[in-house]
């Protein structure tokens, strides 16, 4: 019952961009260095986030990435669904697929409720709230 690496790293990429919103463009190389994530992996995730409209890129020598919208408008649940496909704890029932009574009982009493609770958390959370939890410049100091 784990989020994928893609989901976790994608959120970190967006948080990093939000934390450095005062810089016009942020390069993936600088994010890779700060976050300790490989460049190749970030490039892969950046393609997905760009396609979904969360980030935009400027090409060229002074190019890089920036958020495409205000961090307060970016819902973490939506981002995770782009990166994970969905957030369900079990596959959805396909049409025509039959469940026995045990399975149906567990679906309605357990899986549906877990899905609801997970959505409640991530759909009521925006990027600005996550980005605000740690001051990027003083985090190191705090930790000491």
């Amino acid at each position, binding site marked *: *019952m*784990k*989020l994928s690496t893609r989901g*976790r790293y994608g*959120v*970190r990429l967006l*948080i990093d961009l939000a*934390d450095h919103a005062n810089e016009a463009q942020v390069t993936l190389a600088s994010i890779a260095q700060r976050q*300790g994530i490989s460049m190749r992996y970030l490039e892969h995730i950046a393609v997905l986030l760009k396609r979904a409209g969360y980030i935009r890129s400027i090409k060229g020598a002074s190019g890089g990435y920036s958020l495409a919208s205000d961090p307060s408008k970016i819902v*973490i649940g939506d981002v995770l669904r782009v990166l*994970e496909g969905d*957030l*369900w*704890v*079990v*596959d959805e029932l396909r049409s025509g697929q039959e*469940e*026995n*009574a*045990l*399975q*149906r*009982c*567990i679906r*309605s*009493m*357990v*899986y549906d*409720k*877990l899905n609801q*609770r*997970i959505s*409640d*958390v*991530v759909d009521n*959370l925006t990027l600005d709230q*996550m*980005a605000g*939890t*740690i001051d*990027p410049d003083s*985090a*190191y100091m*705090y*930790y000491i």
Partner: protein
Amino acid sequence: MRISTRGRYSLEALLFLALEPGDALHNTRAIAEQTGISEGYLEQLFIPLRQKGLIVAIRGAQGGYRLGKNAAEISIGDILRVSEGSLEPVGCLANEPCGREGECASRLTWERLYSAITECADSITLADLVDAYEPIETEVHTEYAI
């Protein structure tokens, strides 16, 4: 964020046992027939569930399995922690700290997600599922009859 097949099958097998009278023993063949899970897989699932006391195994010709406690004392969280190992949505909260805890802006969110999942799974017991089962069974049988 899927629950594994192991987790889903464990829930189904334990719900089956919870629906039966308290002292009745069921061998894996009977459980397999009712749940559609293979006998071999059931035996694998039952090893850790037995170690944690969620089920009891009685050996011998008349032997079999039953719940190890009252259904009201077994939560979904208890079962899933055995079958899934952990309910953490990310591996870094308790088991494998990554070393970036102090500067990780995601951690609070993953912790919140973890406690939502834990609270939910721990608040539902097998007895709750038993209570919900009967109308669902009637519904399923009616559909098949049509």
